[in-house]
């Protein structure tokens, strides 16, 4: 069931005419704006580059959060899934996987291009990609939780930012730290373990919470 839901989400995205790419456009625009605001000198921007890419990922993800459940909630798909006796935990798991694939994976793949714009070294490009990759479950699941809480509400955009910020702060802190310590100690850096730990905690806590919130919204 989970697999068919994921497949459905991917097919829907492919046939949507590229709406899933908007997050990527935003990512590119954000990075361009930061480079312009910082004056465009490589030696000034290079130390900030991992932080800027991380911020671009976080903001792009935040803007995609409201869409996770919106259309399925409005057209009654979620209600149908619930009536047909599917576990909402499974629905949430499927949604988390499809969100990670559609909204975060493109950003990870686009990170090297962004890194070229900042003239980053290849080691720090790898570090940025790896740190975002390890944090992806946590990013997706806390977004899922906020999306589930606000499912079916209009104008939840700013609110979703407010709700997810406290949960994303540790991810941002350790993500940026991880990119810095990767250069010295590689994947063995403590920050990577912490990122994996944050992701595991989000799976243990965030997924059940998101399914409970979804259930409350479907009652």
């Amino acid at each position, binding site marked *: 069931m989970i697999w068919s839901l994921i497949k459905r989400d991917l097919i829907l995205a492919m046939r949507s005419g590229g709406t899933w790419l908007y997050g990527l456009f935003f990512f590119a625009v954000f990075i361009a704006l930061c480079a312009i605001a910082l004056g465009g000198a490589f030696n000034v921007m290079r130390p900030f580059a991992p932080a800027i890419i991380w911020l671009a990922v976080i903001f792009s993800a935040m803007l995609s959060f409201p869409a996770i459940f919106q259309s399925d909630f409005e057209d009654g798909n979620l209600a149908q899934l619930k009536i047909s006796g599917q576990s909402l935990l499974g629905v949430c798991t499927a949604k988390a996987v499809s969100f990670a694939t559609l909204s975060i994976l493109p950003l990870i793949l686009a990170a090297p291009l962004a890194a070229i714009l900042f003239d980053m070294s290849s080691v720090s490009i790898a570090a940025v990609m790896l740190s975002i990759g390890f944090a992806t479950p946590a990013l997706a699941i806390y977004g899922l*939780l906020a999306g589930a*809480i*606000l499912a079916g*509400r209009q104008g*939840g955009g700013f*609110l979703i930012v*407010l*709700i997810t*910020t*406290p*949960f994303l*702060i*540790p991810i941002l*802190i*350790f993500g940026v*730290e991880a990119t810095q310590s990767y250069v010295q100690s590689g994947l063995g850096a403590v920050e990577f373990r*912490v990122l994996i730990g*944050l992701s595991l*905690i989000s799976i243990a*806590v*965030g997924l059940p*919470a998101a399914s*409970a*919130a979804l259930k*409350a*919204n479907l*009652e």
Partner: protein
Amino acid sequence: MINYLANPIRFLKFSKVAAPIFGWLSLGTFVWGLYLALIASPPAIEHGQSVRMMYVHVPAAWGAQMAYTALTIASLVSFIWRHPLADSAARSFALPGTAFTFLALVTGSLWGRPAWGTWWQWDGRMTSVLILLFIYLGYLAIWNIIPERKRAARLASILAMVGFINIPIIKFSVDWWNTLHQPASISSPGAPGMPPEILWPLLVMVTAYTLLFGWLSLRGIEADIVKSRKTRAESKPAATATIETL
């Protein structure tokens, strides 16, 4: 005791007696504590007169954390047993908690200026209190944006509990972040080695804040019970029709 009070009518009766006690006791301890803190206690050796800021700052920070713990316990009860009184309680704990958090930040900033020479520092403790404020605001926003009471209570309780689990993580992360970025140049005035003439006013002020929190939340619960009963009592017409005449 808790079982007995779980009935809203009995709770209202209890609150009618208890709330004024909390209120007046709080006022009394505030007067006593402020006298001790602002007039009777000596200025500290390193901090001078600005140490008096501590007597409003530390209890506010304590109140902020206490309120969030109470909020989480009420949310847990509300989530498991779906008890409407727990909803009212959780909702009423949030507003004083937000106010205490904001007060802790403002007084801390005002104290930081003379003590450390800066209004703000991205230090572990300040950052985590700021994040606590965000969590409170998000919690209150859910109550605001969702009109159906039961659903709002359930969703808000989920957020409060997940937030509670995250608080140690946030604290840990910002503490570590701080030590990595800027070596700790700041430490709050040592709690264990505090002389009694400073400790006593502080304890009185903490008691005063706690009583104030009790009073505010009891009054909040009362108001919430009355309000939810009123919305239930309003019978809505089955259908409305408007006749427009040209």
